[in-house]
């Protein structure tokens, strides 16, 4: 490349460069069963944000495990996690990722 940044692995091969695209990690937090949580991250204002949900410690064959809803609002700065309407929710890991687009 004419200019930019290359990061090489120990064996000399290219590992990462400014030709790449990535998701940066903003936060990870665990939401308790049936809880509602709203977290705001001012540093990701205007970015593309995704929040992955992973159920935790759930016996996968013994109960109805409802995943909570996730909403991104406030110019992508606020992540709100809440139970689905009328349903209890299971404990869940939320992984917030952001991408400058």
């Amino acid at each position, binding site marked *: 490349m004419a200019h930019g940044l290359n990061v090489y692995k120990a064996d000399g091969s290219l590992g990462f460069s*400014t030709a790449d695209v990535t998701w940066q990690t903003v936060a990870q937090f665990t939401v308790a069963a049936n809880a509602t949580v709203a977290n705001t991250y001012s540093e990701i204002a205007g970015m593309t944000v995704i929040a992955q949900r992973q159920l935790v410690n759930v016996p996968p064959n013994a*109960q109805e495990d409802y995943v909570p809803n996730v909403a991104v609002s406030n110019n992508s700065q606020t992540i709100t996690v809440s139970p689905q309407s009328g349903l209890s929710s299971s404990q869940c890991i939320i992984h917030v990722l952001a991408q400058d687009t």
Partner: protein
Amino acid sequence: MAYGFEAKNDSGNIIINDTIENLHFIGKATRGSADSAYGDIPNYSGSNDTLDGRVVHTYTITCSGTPVAFIKPADYARWHSIIKQSVSGTTWTFEVMISGTSTSNPPDVYCFVNADDIPTPSETHGMLVFKSDGTSKTFDSRRQPLAITGGGTASAPPSDPTNTSGTPGTTSGHPWNYATNDHDFRSSNRYTEHSNSAANTSTAMFSCPSLAQACYKRQMHGFHQSCICYIFGWCACGYQDHWSTASWWVMYRQAFRFRSGKFDSGWTGYAAGYAFSSAYESGGWFGGGGGSYSSGTMPYTAKTINLQSNAYILADSSRYD
């Protein structure tokens, strides 16, 4: 910015800065036990006995942060998903379900953690970027940063996870002791596809937790009424009723599959069972008991839950080998 560090990619988008942490590769999770089951409906033989089967592999990795896990299939024809993630101290455990019953060709689980929580590398050279507090890292070139190749929104799979059109239900009016399943509980053609140029069947890996679940049952009630005794061709002693119930159930979890240029969101059966009961009312001298049999308990009443879309991320595993 007045000071700090910022690197933009060829599109002018920030990929490293001093405020948001990058994800870095910390290694592949260690594979442990495997549980293979449900190539067919337990304790039943007959029509529509065959299921897709599933293997649950257990993986562990130790790290102080919360890992983002990518599944790299070894057999791209099979469906894969992380169905459970738990932590004890700093040891994370993943249960990865794949379709089929063969424990050969298990997938690899590549784990990425935020820069500040990566294990301290032994290398003494590299580039580190810190936040304004001067101690929290956002980037560390000594551990390979995550570069993605694609992704998007994975739509939920079809609500009905079963190959036979329409979800199974309960019917009556069958002959007594009738137990022939007429519903194909396999899921091989039940998926939602997503076109993505980064999807391939050689080095692609994905991160997308399994959200949707489903549980469905086919149930058949049988009935027969017999005459207890005849006198001159006339049913003189009343009638005796016979009842039977046969039921087959399967529980499903959302799973994913790569094809060339496609990322599919579908289903794999996680558990299954069969129950049969038969009884008849007392018939005096001719009476007697009934019988019953069951395997497993259906975890909840028939329904599909968590039918929601979820973000998926694709990356090239060969960069981290």
